[in-house]
């Protein structure tokens, strides 16, 4: 069992079709209890009040917003180096999920920031780099949509993903530097994990696992859709030739 086996779409469809119901089940079994536990059965944090609940969505979404880009980078590399077709389609399928995760992280962050910092938006390095990450997702998806030939699109978006990764990291550190330069002594710390009690920690871990499984579910579904769409266009093309 190696990933090269799954360069064959038939094999991939078989295995993913078999796996999918189990993963959907696991997603439901972790995400629902994680969120319900987090929302209804944790005490209110003294200094945050009820707004602390938002971290059960915010932190997992933010975690996966970054990790999905990393996953796209890896799958793009696998495509560019070994022409692994399913890998390219997986990168394509992952991008909109990652974009939505980024958007969720930004919006829930705003809900948290409004009562806590008194502002919906602050040009904090982390917020800024997430906005930039969102733009990278937009560009990546737009490029996929704009190019007709699927192989050309996969190649070009792969190259864009590589270059974009470097610049996304660079922007992250540039933003950290830039904000320090703008207002010194900014004390907005988002490192919640450092001072979080076990009561909040356990449901949070469960939600993170739930979000991860949700991502895998959506990714498999979307990749299967992409493969079917590819088959459909191949059939249509054959029909036109005949």
């Amino acid at each position: 069992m190696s990933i090269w086996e799954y360069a064959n779409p038939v094999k991939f469809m078989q295995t993913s079709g078999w796996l999918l119901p189990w993963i959907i089940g696991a997603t439901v079994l972790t995400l629902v209890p994680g969120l319900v536990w987090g929302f209804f059965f944790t005490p209110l944090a003294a200094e945050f009040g009820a707004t602390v609940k938002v971290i059960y969505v915010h932190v997992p979404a933010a975690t996966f917003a970054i990790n999905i880009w990393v996953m796209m980078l890896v799958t793009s590399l696998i495509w560019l180096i070994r022409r692994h077709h399913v890998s390219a389609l997986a990168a394509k399928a992952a991008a909109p999920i990652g974009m939505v995760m980024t958007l969720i992280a930004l919006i829930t962050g705003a809900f948290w920031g409004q009562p806590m910092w008194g502002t919906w938006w602050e040009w904090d390095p982390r917020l800024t780099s997430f906005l930039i990450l969102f733009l990278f997702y937009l560009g990546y998806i737009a490029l996929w949509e704009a190019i007709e030939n699927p192989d050309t699109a996969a190649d070009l978006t792969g190259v864009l993903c590589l270059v974009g990764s470097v610049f996304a990291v660079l922007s992250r550190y540039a933003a950290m530097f830039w904000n320090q330069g703008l207002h010194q002594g900014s004390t907005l710390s988002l490192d919640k994990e450092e001072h979080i009690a076990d009561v909040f920690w356990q449901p949070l871990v469960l939600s993170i696992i739930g979000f991860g499984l949700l991502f895998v579910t959506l990714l498999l579904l979307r990749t299967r859709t992409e493969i079917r769409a590819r088959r459909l266009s191949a059939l249509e093309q054959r029909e036109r030739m005949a």
Partner: protein
Amino acid sequence: MIALLMRDLRLAIRAGGGFGLGLAFFLIVVTLVPFGVGPEGAILSRIAAGILWLGALLACLLSLDRIFALDFEDGSLDLLATAPIPLEAVVTMKALAHWITTGLPLVLAAPLFAVLLHLPTPAYFWLEVSLLLGTPALSVLGTFGAALTVGLKRGGLLLSLLVLPLYVPTLIFGAELVRRGGEGMAVQVPLAMLAGITAATIALVPFASAAAIRVNLR
């Protein structure tokens, strides 16, 4: 390579608008900003560095889609790709030609436009340094975006969406360098970072651009 550079420069000049258009656009941006934010000198001198950098960035963006599009349409890009010099060198020369026709005039004209925006006197030197160091990176990154979108019918808007996020680090360090220089603070970090980004982009991005062109010519 020199011949290619001269050819691109000649084309840019004779086709008209190569040199002048970017500059005119830069001037318009600089003119419009005071209408938007109000004419007080204090505000303008605070944001002058950022406006000048943004103006340079947008003016650079304006002429990007022409870098490869014309050569792609009339087939000379195919010839260049099969020419004895590597495609990476072709791309680098294209970027250099783009910089000479848009980046360099902006660098030269920037002090003049800075007067309009009340840029603080000590910042002039750093404005020149930052634009001189930063605009080559803008041109090289621009060729990457142009290479990605060269086969597309309406690539212009997509090109901006792809290229502008890549400009973020250059813009941050460039504008920061001017701001710090103007306030008399230490400038080593943004200076080193800006120079480093430009050097690394010139060294590495042509490979990505050439790869994208090869895919598009396939």
